[in-house]
């Protein structure tokens, strides 16, 4: 399935490892059940990612976070919003690797995805065909700022107001 981040569609460097298949390669994406063994057998500099359902909970992942470069979370449907919270919890727990949304998410959700800590999305071909890169970039550009502090890289509206007040205070 096509992979896309804030810069557009790009090649996917990650190799999905099926159950029982040897986890060879520079960057391997494995199921949670296989994760302990793959981490134990990790080759030098190999990057390891895990692919999980949105019903997996943070405590199931906590022990591995330091070892992981990617957590890919499934979206069974675009309007099943559980992964937004799971991604946030990963970020709040200090996870620094990449977080990926896998499934039929749409461009209109991109800002929310990024704000909750996702870096990239892997969408079905049909969606990529209907929603070219420009629509995803357009979606990101459609929000100047949002109200929630701590979601996304930019300053929230509350922080902007604070800065404005500080500026006015300093000027007067």
């Amino acid at each position, binding site marked *: 399935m096509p992979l896309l981040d804030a810069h557009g569609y790009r090649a996917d460097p990650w190799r999905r490892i099926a159950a029982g298949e040897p986890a060879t390669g520079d960057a391997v994406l494995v199921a949670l059940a296989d994760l302990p063994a793959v981490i134990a057998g990790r080759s030098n500099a190999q990057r390891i990612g895990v692919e999980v359902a949105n019903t997996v*909970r943070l405590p199931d992942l906590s022990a591995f976070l330091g070892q992981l470069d990617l957590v890919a979370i499934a979206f069974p449907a*675009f*309007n*099943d*919003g*559980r992964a*937004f*919270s*799971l991604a*946030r*919890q990963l970020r*709040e727990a200090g996870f620094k690797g990449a977080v990926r949304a896998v499934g039929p998410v*749409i*461009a*209109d*959700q991109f*800002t*929310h*995805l990024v*704000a*909750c800590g996702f870096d990239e999305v892997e969408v079905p071909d049909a969606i990529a065909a*209907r*929603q070219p890169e420009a*629509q995803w970039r*357009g979606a990101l550009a*459609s*929000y*100047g*700022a*949002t*109200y*929630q*502090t*701590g*979601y*996304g890289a930019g300053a929230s*509206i*509350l922080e*902007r*107001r*604070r800065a404005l*007040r500080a500026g006015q205070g300093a000027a007067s």
Partner: protein
Amino acid sequence: MYRYDQFDEAFVRERVAQFRGQVARRIDGALTEDEFKPLRLKNGVYLQLHAYMLRIAIPYGTLSSVQLRQLALIGERYDRGYGHFTTRQNLQFNWPKLRDIPDILDLLADVGMHCIQTSGNCIRNTTADHFSGAAADEVEDPRPTAELIRQWSTMHPEFDYLPRKFKIAVTGAARDRAAIRAHDIGIQVVRHPVSGEVGYRLFVGGGLGRTPMIGKLVRDFLPKAHLLAYLQSLMRVYNLEGRRDNKYKARVKILVHEIGIEEFRARVEAEFAALDPAAIAADPDEVARIEAYFAAPAFATFPADSQRVVADRARDAAFDRWVETNTFPHRQPGYAAVTVSLKPVGGVPGDATSDQMRAVADLADAHSFGEIRVSHHQNLILPHVRQDELHALWTGLVAAGLAEANAGLITDIIACPGLDYCALATARSIPIAQAISRRFGSAERQREIGELGIKISGCINACGHHHVGHIGILGLEKSGQESYQVTLGGDATENAAIGQLLGPGITAEEVPDAIERLVGVYLAHRHDGETFAEAVRRLGIEPFKAGFLAPQPAEAAHAAA
């Protein structure tokens, strides 16, 4: 009143542009109908029986005269010259065209309004006591809290695709006029019994619909500065654990019911403990900025009771009746809060024509500091009226056909749109309301019966709050026929209760007689000064059941003829 600053303004303009783009992308096929639907709903656009319906957010029910005039204009230009005020303190237009909707959104943005999150599986418009800032019994005006929640919940990145809709209501008084325990989250502003600190008491898991439930206490006291972090924790538990396999079991009330309030509370507290409330909260300057908008208007100092009103009441009986029912004690001596009834006898509950909206806007400018409220009883409120000016105001309302003296009485009926508009309806509700209203239309009769809330829904979704009506009426369909179930003993206040079924369903024609019989039981048994609801609490349902099931001889004869 809150006014948009540059950031609110820019945010809403961006949303209008975004929706314009989404409509275009739906038309060119970039978005499928399934993908477009939640985006359209988040902008308040429903597809209904005859047309699209547009639902406009009136945050915590507060409107300025300028905003109300704009709604009048939209009603005239894009609808059929009227709008419908709802139990959610929103306004609905029933006849707009889809292609006009982005333009309507622009007109709304011109006056600091929008339709964002008036529908869809997200946090909906936050509602509040319609007497906020006016009521004498308030710990604190709940609207700064509601506005903070409005901002925080607007397009929240984490909570925009919830299992189901989510409704938050806030009250600043112990006397609950916002039905907080019928909401997913109900918030009561309270004073800490020991420290005196002002904070919040929170209820969770209330809701009506097909499985009505009364909200349960989840936190007895929450410091004000912790509110947003606590809400984030609670929403996160719901977003992760709320059921998504069955839309009828997806509300938070079902989650709370299934895992129990203790377990639910424990999960919320665990999430809360991991957060830094200060990083999520609005800073004190921001809180002060919002509060400043809700500062009391420039009240003058008057004696508590106006001699002028006493004199006017003495010489004008109709005015006297209206003052008695439609005014509410104000915190400021010499002022009153006024209910402008949208329930003319025999009329459509909650409908107001564009001309009436303009009349109310003008009267608000003249007599209420330009401020109007929408109540969840589908009436309008003028919150700050000088008692000396009540007669002048009343005269203006009479001219606009808005002076029905029935606030809280039996003809002040709440009714959902029902089969006249709604695609989900199983029966009519508006005509039932009209028939009851005509039956009890006499001013003397209504006053004699006293406070009595009838609430009517046209299907099990309960938009008309029938479960919490003193008398609730639910319209169903039985083998092609409308059939109405009648419940008794519901209550939407701090004594929140779900009504109990009185007996088998009855036809539309039988409803007014059945109500008549219930009122008869009450009048026969009431103690001095006892309201209908109090009498039901004291007597229990049985005497009313007997009355409901046994037609009077005159009716039986009538039916046989």
